[in-house]
């Protein structure tokens, strides 16, 4: 592990906000149709972290979500399965048992999600408990308060110790970009997370708006690209929150392809954190086959 002073003392390049917005606008104008669209829709499904993060989550709700993950739509047996099911630590065991042997990972948020306002010892304990219960992936939140106050060393240390507590589990670092304010801060937080041991960087908790906006995601993708060019290390990306339509998802895939290349069009390196995206993608897939516009009523919750 790098020492905190070395980790925190680097320069992130300044972000040209207008340039980012123009680039995003141009990428959003791509038209993806027919076979390419169908391919993109299938790829999107395979990248989804099917998520439920509500106070009202129960064992039954998680089992039902896992059943959905195992079979997205009975009428289309050839669909890929989603990448992971993402739940709170207390429900990791339930998800683990429901998904055993399916190839679908169990992801757990941890570190006092979503605010992250807890002592570091408690956060680390939460991470260890989640991993013990069977989480393959841990989604942590950074302490935005400390980060915004300029305490980058604290943030770097925090990420590094969570990474250590994860052991074999993959670590996704949630920056909560909606609270960071500027694209420059997003870039700096991305660089910091990648240098401190993140396997994935993730935009948002889904509890704060705005969440995964296109400019934010583009800045993070560029940070991943620069990190790759510098170190040869491939860090994954997970936009989460606010991506609810197939059209949005395809725009994201275009942006990934154009920024990071074909390698990142893979569930190992790109994920969508979403609760309602899967059904819209299913709707579009059925529509591509039948030519008939579909109703949400036709798909399971």
């Amino acid at each position, binding site marked *: 592990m790098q020492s905190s002073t070395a980790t925190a003392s680097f320069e992130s390049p300044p972000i040209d906000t207008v340039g980012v917005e123009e680039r995003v606008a141009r990428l959003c104008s791509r038209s993806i149709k027919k076979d390419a669209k169908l391919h993109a829709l299938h790829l999107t499904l395979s990248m989804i972290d099917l998520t439920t993060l509500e106070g009202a989550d129960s064992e039954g709700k998680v089992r039902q979500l896992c059943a959905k993950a195992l079979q997205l739509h009975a009428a289309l047996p050839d669909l890929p399965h989603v990448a992971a099911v993402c739940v709170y630590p207390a429900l990791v065991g339930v998800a683990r048992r429901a998904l055993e042997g399916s190839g679908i990972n169990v992801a757990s948020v941890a570190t006092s999600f979503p605010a992250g306002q807890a002592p570091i010892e408690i956060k680390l304990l939460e991470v260890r408990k989640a991993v013990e219960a069977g989480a393959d992936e841990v989604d942590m939140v950074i302490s935005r308060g400390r980060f915004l106050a300029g305490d980058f060393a604290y943030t770097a240390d925090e990420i590094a110790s969570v990474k250590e507590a994860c052991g074999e589990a993959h670590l996704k670092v949630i920056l909560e970009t909606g609270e960071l304010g500027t694209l420059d801060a997003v870039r700096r937080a991305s660089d910091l997370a990648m240098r401190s041991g993140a396997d994935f960087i993730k935009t948002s908790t889904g509890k704060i708006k705005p969440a995964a906006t296109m400019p934010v995601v583009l800045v993070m993708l560029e940070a991943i690209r620069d990190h790759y060019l510098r170190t040869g290390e491939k860090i994954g990306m997970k936009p989460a929150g606010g991506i609810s339509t197939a059209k949005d998802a395809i725009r994201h895939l275009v942006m990934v392809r154009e920024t990071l290349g074909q390698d990142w069009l893979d569930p190992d390196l790109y994920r969508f954190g979403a609760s309602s995206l899967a059904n819209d993608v299913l709707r579009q897939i059925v529509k591509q086959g039948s030519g008939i*516009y*579909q109703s949400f009523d036709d798909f399971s919750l």
Partner: protein
Amino acid sequence: MSERRPAAAADRLPVLKTHKVYVGGKFPRSESGRFDRALAPDGTPIANICRCSRKDVRDAVTAARAAQAGWAARTAYNRGQILYRIAEMLEGRSGQFEALLAAGGTAPDEAAAEVQAATDRLLHYAGWTDKFQQVFSSVNPVATSHFNFSILEPMGVVGVLAPESPLLGLVSSIAPAIAGGNTTVVLVTGSQPLPATTLGEVLNSSDVPGGVVNILTGRRDEMLAPLAAHRDVDGLLLCSPDPDVTRSAEIEAVHNLKRVAVRGHEDWTDIQSPYEITDLQEVKTTWHPIGS
């Protein structure tokens, strides 16, 4: 200095209004970017209208679906107030509608009568919103120890193929649908679309929530089949005297077993009745156990 004078009428190019469609409380153009000309009976162009595509139909259904639960949850009394408000706004713009009808070839006195009839029709259905439930719901006699009753509920999203009658027929088809708590996607495909697009402006200024009425202009053969087949549309109201048109739409409607009502009238003068509302309702019957 020469005195400023308005240019002579002959020098001036007329500004043709593009009558935009009404979807989700907004006035977008067709996503296709296509347009048609609305023509006077002698063939002179009088306005541009949007030529909507199946994707506009899709977007309109999304807007109607989003608005449906909220509209149905309004009290029946409030829906009546809003229908009355549409009538008020229509009355205030009667001159404009008379001119539009006249431009489409209706004789001036007939145009005035049609606008008045359309306004009165709105009042008719405004009055029915909080009454048809009492008239048509029932407590049913059953031989078991159940309290058994039937009530009417809106179908949900109703697709309307608007009749050729440009204002009275249009209002007579939309009003009963929304009076009962449905939201609508209205396809205006007749030879006189301008009263319909202008009615969108009236609706938008009369407390009707966005998405309750969505008005698309264009060609029937491009829009009707996708609307009739759309699985998120719950009912169809087909106002056409042509059995081939209604039959083909009914065939498309089987995908999700939409209920279909067909209106073949050419003359809409006398077509007002609470049955126009109940034809776009579903009956829910409840068996409630009582006794021991």
